[in-house]
């Protein structure tokens, strides 16, 4: 394998998919974040923690502009990061993934990873807009979320080992499903009560799921196309005659 070519296309595809994710968030998720932070502002005015003055709004808008601009940068960083994991898993699984070309293989893997490290953890710990989280519980919530992603991801790897060794392939899927269902009930839930309006929460969650899903689709597609085009597995061989 051409190592530097492999690393380059993995980083490039993750980065590109991440930038797409960030741009999409500006249109799809930011309106909900603005609404949620608007509620926080109202609460701060009500409790006297902040005063509803022109100065407040000047500072608020420059602060929000900074945060919104960060979507693109943070998208690039997160995309490159998750894309790197995707690339490593692809490298290990590229010969067993279904499909006769790399675009099909990367899309298949993107689908598997989207389900195991995103959808399933989301069902247990769904995304929340600002105002929901209690700062006191942040470390607990971060630990639980990361733990659930790790449990689901490693369980998928584990049940794949089983899948390879048994004839009744369906049992591996049932096993993974049963294990994750058990973990779903074993793991403690998010301790924070949700006080924000229902339509804000659901609108935010739907938009968030859409943009993260677009990220996974883009990551799979771009890496598949780049792999297909540049094939890091292709090496020059000099054969003596």
């Amino acid at each position, binding site marked *: 394998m051409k190592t530097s070519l492999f690393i380059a296309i993995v980083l490039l595809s993750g980065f590109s998919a991440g930038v797409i994710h960030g741009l999409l968030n500006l249109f799809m998720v930011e309106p909900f*974040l603005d609404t949620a932070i608007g509620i926080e502002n109202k609460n701060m005015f009500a409790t006297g923690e902040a005063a509803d003055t022109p100065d407040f709004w000047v500072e608020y808008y420059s602060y929000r502009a900074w945060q919104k601009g960060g979507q693109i940068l943070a998208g690039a960083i*997160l995309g490159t990061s998750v894309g790197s994991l995707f690339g490593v898993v692809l490298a290990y699984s590229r010969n067993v993934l279904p499909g006769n070309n790399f675009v099909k293989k990367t899309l298949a893997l993107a689908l598997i990873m989207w389900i195991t490290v995103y959808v399933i953890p989301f069902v247990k710990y769904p995304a929340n807009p600002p*105002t929901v989280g209690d700062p006191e519980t942040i470390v607990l919530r971060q630990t639980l979320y990361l733990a659930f992603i790790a449990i689901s991801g490693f369980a998928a790897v584990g049940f794949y080992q089983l899948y390879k060794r048994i004839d009744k392939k369906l049992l591996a899927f049932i096993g993974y499903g049963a294990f994750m269902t058990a973990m779903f009930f074993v793991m403690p839930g998010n301790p924070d009560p949700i006080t924000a309006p229902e339509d804000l929460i659901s609108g935010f969650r739907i938009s*968030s799921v859409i943009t993260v899903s677009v990220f996974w689709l883009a990551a799979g597609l771009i890496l598949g196309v780049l792999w297909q085009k540049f094939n890091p597995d292709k090496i020059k061989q000099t054969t003596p005659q």
Partner: protein
Amino acid sequence: MSYSKEITVSKSGVPKIALVALAAVFVFGLFVVGYDQGHLFSVVFGEQAFADLYIHELTHDMRHAAGFPCH
């Protein structure tokens, strides 16, 4: 005499150096966007960064949007 031709060798697995590099990028990026509360800049700017939470503010909206726990 010898001649060169391109062949495709797809042994499963990753060169170690690629594995280490990509694992580092993964952990670093996940930490910065999903978990950092201002620890990173503190190395450069000292304790002040904890108060300012530069990175936290810059990655804040993506943290919510991507489903990570936040405020």
